[in-house]
């Protein structure tokens, strides 16, 4: 009986949500801000990828908050999982990975790193950016820590890379504040459209975000893996 009532309520909720949504024509009826992004974007920022310039320039402050949330989540996880070195967890020992997995991972790992780097360096030209590239790099590290037990990531080094990347982001933003009057001002020259060195501060910030996200996610996975051994 209760399940039936729940189903009826759910159906009513679904109907109530789908009714107004179906009235909006998909991909049409853009609000003024979206129109501005689409029509003025390339002449204002010099970045070929509109999504990137929205994420890094127009909404750059939100991105800083997003990166901070990820940072806090990583700190929280590390502090929950923290064990003093002397106390060895009493999990069963992990058996060695097979030869196929080890060889395949050693072959794939550099390619995954290269692909992730390509994605965040070319964030202003092609789809993708710091978050995607960082996540791909972190999945490469996850693959490596599955296959090779002896190559354990140094948490200290990851922390240094992460902090430097975060500092770069904030410093670039503050230089904009000092020179032009607002945070994350695009103070570098825009350059030629579709070139690697174009779009001012966008590539700088996206490389910083790529390093930051990659080291944070790799740190999370490294922390979890360490506890399982």
């Amino acid at each position, binding site marked *: 009986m209760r399940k039936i009532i729940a189903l009826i309520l759910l159906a009513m909720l679904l109907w109530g949500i789908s009714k107004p949504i179906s009235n909006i024509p998909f991909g049409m009826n853009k609000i003024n801000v979206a129109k501005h992004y689409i029509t003025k974007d390339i002449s204002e920022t010099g970045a070929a990828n509109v999504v990137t310039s929205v994420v890094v320039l127009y909404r750059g402050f939100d991105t800083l908050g997003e990166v901070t949330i990820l940072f806090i989540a990583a700190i929280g996880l590390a502090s929950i999982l923290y064990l003093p070195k002397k106390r060895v967890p009493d999990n069963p020992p992990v058996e060695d990975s097979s030869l196929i997995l080890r060889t395949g991972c050693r072959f794939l790992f550099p390619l995954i790193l290269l692909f992730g780097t390509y994605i965040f360096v070319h964030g202003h030209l092609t789809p*993708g*950016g710091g978050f*995607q590239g960082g*996540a791909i790099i*972190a*999945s490469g590290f*996850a693959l490596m820590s599955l296959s090779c037990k002896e190559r354990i990531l140094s948490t200290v080094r990851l922390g240094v890379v992460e902090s430097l990347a975060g500092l770069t982001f904030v410093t670039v933003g503050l230089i904009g504040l000092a020179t032009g009057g607002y945070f994350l001002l695009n103070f570098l020259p825009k350059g030629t459209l579709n070139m690697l060195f174009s779009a001012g501060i966008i590539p700088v910030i996206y490389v910083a975000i790529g390093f930051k996200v990659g080291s944070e996610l790799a740190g*999370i996975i490294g922390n*979890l893996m360490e506890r*399982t051994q």
Partner: protein
Amino acid sequence: MVAMVLIVIMLIAALVAAALKDLLGAVVVATLVSLITAILFYFLQAPDVAMAEASIGAALETVIFVIAIRKTERFEDK
């Protein structure tokens, strides 16, 4: 047409993931949901979101869930 087939597969996979008692299998089926979501984002001309979904939803999430299952129990009991 392809999108409709994918959406049906995705819905079935989501229901299976909720119903399965084998948690490792449930994680694999949930990865399928993420993967199809990424393909659908690509069909909707949002390659940026598709890449984020594929790398985080399909790769990292699975790794984290598998590690968690390895630390706890594989089968859900009542």
